[in-house]
């Protein structure tokens, strides 16, 4: 009873806070006053992530614009193929699509996503810094509007049998002697090849140069060969947490938000190995070819949903780092669990001592080739 009251009070406070912020927010979206469609279809990933978007900015936006209806479509995983099909059928039913950065680059290359001027369509930081500076390097494509930074990292069971010591770095994945047991890795070359080279003694800054050569690729696959028989390959983000909870595996890679809910919400004996976490980004793209009124609605929503406060609010619901520099200091408690979120963010200084930045442009080139090799290697 008491807890409910506290929770209610705190959420009322949050609500009041955000409403107050919205009122004091002097800058209006650049399309304010223009004719706008009164419905919008947002595409996202479903699950906890979509729920965080719903609470952090869709609900507040709907409160400010009661006439608007927002429909969710949980199709982000197939967004690229579906957008291409919609484009060919000339029947665009989506207004704003949440995709990972590499998909955004692909959609931009295919001409399926709209190029935007980030300073024009996104709100500046509260201190007046331009949006493009506030987002900085995270704007990896002209079509991409970043929302969060997440990472692929390794979680391990703390009660694994027959272990000597605790895993300290990413190479524990390869240390079958000290940490015997099954592992899980994502069934794609991205990330795994980098880790393999890193543990084969290649310096972090040279990895992509090495991976560009035939010998480097062979070297990475040879390193993966060492643990191939002990690896379960996952395709869905929920696989590793499930396998860890079942005791099927003793360590495995997945998105940090999934591990957060496994550890904090489900209270499983699992720890996170932040070492060599691979950063990735997720954000919005606007599909190319929206009619003007729908586009205006999207622009109006985007201006609000990606501002500093909204991105900081999102981190109350999920442990993904806000993409704006200016949002970082505002990260606070989890809205329901009351856990301080900062230490669970992939961008937290303690967690990001050794991080790995995914090289999008490099992978855009090498993805097809290495994927064929990876599949052939798996089939052997």
């Amino acid at each position: 009873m008491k807890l409910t009251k506290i929770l209610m009070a705190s959420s009322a406070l949050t609500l009041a806070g955000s409403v107050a912020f919205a009122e004091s927010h002097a800058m209006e979206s650049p399309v304010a006053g223009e004719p706008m469609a009164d419905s919008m279809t947002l595409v996202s990933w479903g699950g906890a992530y979509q729920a965080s978007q719903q609470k952090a900015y869709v609900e507040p936006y709907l409160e400010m614009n009661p006439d608007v209806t927002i429909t969710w479509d949980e199709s982000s995983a197939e967004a690229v193929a579906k957008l291409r099909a919609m484009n060919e059928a000339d029947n665009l039913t989506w207004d704003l699509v949440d995709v990972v950065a590499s998909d955004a680059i692909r959609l931009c290359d295919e001409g399926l996503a709209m190029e935007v001027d980030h300073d024009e369509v996104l709100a500046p930081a509260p201190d007046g810094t331009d949006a493009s500076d506030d987002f900085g390097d995270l704007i990896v494509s002209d079509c991409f509007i970043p929302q969060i930074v997440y990472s692929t990292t390794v979680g391990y069971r703390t009660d694994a049998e027959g272990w000597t010591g605790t895993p300290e770095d990413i190479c524990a994945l390869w240390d079958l002697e000290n940490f015997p047991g099954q592992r899980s890795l994502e069934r794609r070359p991205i990330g795994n090849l980098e880790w393999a080279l890193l543990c084969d003694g290649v310096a972090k800054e040279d990895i992509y140069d090495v991976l560009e050569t035939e010998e480097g690729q062979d070297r990475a696959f040879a390193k993966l060969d060492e643990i191939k028989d002990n690896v379960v390959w996952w395709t869905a983000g929920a696989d590793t947490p499930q396998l860890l909870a079942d005791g099927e595996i003793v360590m495995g890679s997945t998105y940090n938000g999934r591990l957060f809910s496994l550890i904090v919400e489900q209270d499983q004996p699992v720890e996170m190995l932040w070492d060599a976490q691979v950063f990735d980004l997720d954000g919005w793209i606007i599909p190319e070819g929206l009619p003007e009124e729908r586009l205006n609605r999207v622009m109006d929503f985007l201006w609000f949903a990606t501002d500093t406060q909204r991105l900081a609010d999102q981190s109350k619901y999920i442990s993904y780092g806000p993409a704006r520099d200016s949002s970082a200091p505002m990260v606070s408690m989890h809205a329901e669990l009351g856990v301080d979120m900062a230490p669970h963010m992939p961008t937290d200084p303690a967690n990001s001592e050794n991080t790995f930045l995914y090289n999008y442009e490099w992978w855009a080139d090498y993805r097809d080739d290495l994927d064929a090799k990876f599949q052939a290697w798996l089939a052997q």
Partner: protein
Amino acid sequence: MTDATAQDKIAGPTPDTAIRDAERADGPMLAADGRPLKKSLASALRRQKIRALLLIAPLLIFIMFTFIIPIGQMLFRSVENQIVSETLPRTVAALDGYDSESGPPSGEVFAALTRDMVVAAELKNHTRLGSRLNYETTGLSSLFRQAGRGVDDIGEDYTDAFVDANEAWEEGETWVRLLANEGWIVASDEWAAREEAAGRGFDELPPRFVFADGVEEALPRTTEMYADFAAVLRTEDGDSPVDEEPWNIVYLSLYEDLAANPDAPAAFEGAEAELLAEAAEIAAGLEPFDYTAAFEEIDEDWLGEDVWGTIDAFSSDYTAGYFAASADRKLTPDGIQPVDEDQRVYGTLFLRTMLMSLGITVSCIALGYPVAWLLANLPLRTANVLMILVLLPFWTSLLVRTSAWKVLLQQQGVINDILVWLGLVSDSNRLIMINNQFGTIVAMTHILLPFMILPLYSVMKTIPPSYLRAAKSLGATNWTAFWRVYFPQSVPGIGAGSILVFILAIGYYITPEIVGGTKGVFISNRIAYHISTSLNWGLAAALGTILLALVLVLYWLYDRIVGIDNVKLGG
């Protein structure tokens, strides 16, 4: 004939009369109404056919539009390749007769590529082509992306030279006065006035650009690029070129025209002739542009054999490249070559898909046959209960059933736990039953089992039990009675069940994806990957076409060996 003679007395024509008439007259056989019988029959049949066709027309049209046409279109993608010649028309034309072994192509090809890339970059088509060609040669994606960024600067020096000499060259209006037809200028002014009057929401496109007479002969390169410039401006921005400064490549083209033909200004009159004469003088003082060097500066890989070999090999409108890739081969300038051994995957996957589907079919027969026999021979009441047990999983979601197998089969799963508890397996050596071929076969056999049981049951239901009793009464043992009498009659059910199970299995994708691990996945998983992740729809279509062809071949073989008449889905 006697009867017929008797009937002859009946008044009025009868079919027989007609035949007789025909025989007598030695003319065409006539129907009762006096028309030739053949025609009459044909028209009656035709009417019947049309009626039948009309009856099935709604279904036929529905299937055509929702099934046959989309599938046909999808399959057609496996050979389609217009993207190269549509995005780089000039380059493809200039490449005619190019041999990639003789090093990078001539400057002329690079000049054509520059022009194509400027247009493609404006239309944002270049990255699309880059990702298409990147399926063939690694690195082309970023090469095209970089070139798209770099090409608008090509020719900047020439722009500066002309503008420095006379600022008028910076004005869109100067170019329009020089190149446009007078009628077009009037139409464009009218359009601009309408736009001014209408304000916001004006969406009429400006008139299509028309050159003045003789301009195209005098300045061929310039007009060619200017036409593209005007067309892109019109379709992309809805603007008229009157207020826009042309692309750098137009200035470069003007220089090349004037350098090649210093007399070009003579084709013009008045102020335009003067302006052009002045430009011709400037042009005389400029060096020709080195396109090859410009691309080398963007990225030296542009001079590589790989790039040009790929563009050349994929320049035709239709390609066998996707089918080659599906067979672990590669289309190169020297013909079709096998890919490196460490990239061969499709042959293995096709073979595995076939063999595992066969294994699933066999295990479905082995498990389904006794169940169907029981169902067909038990009293109705018990059989109905059993039937519900067969159908229940059939009505359960595919995903739920597959996930359930995960829980059962995994190392910490139910089956392993029981085996350990029984002491049959030690705790450290739990069986690996999932994420491999075993897992896929078990889960898919379970999922497809009803498709085997139902046709078997419906066939067995029609085999009278008295046959078995008769055989036994004649002295056959149980086995002989079953094998010589019962089994041969149930073969059509096995045939129907096998075809259903095998064809369904071959195209399965969700179950192998979830329980198949790495060695238990099918070709459909690769098709799904190319449709949704790599976006290589051409390759997906080629793989799908091959899969379809394989199924049809197997169906034909089945027909030859077993006979398709021997298949029964029901009594």
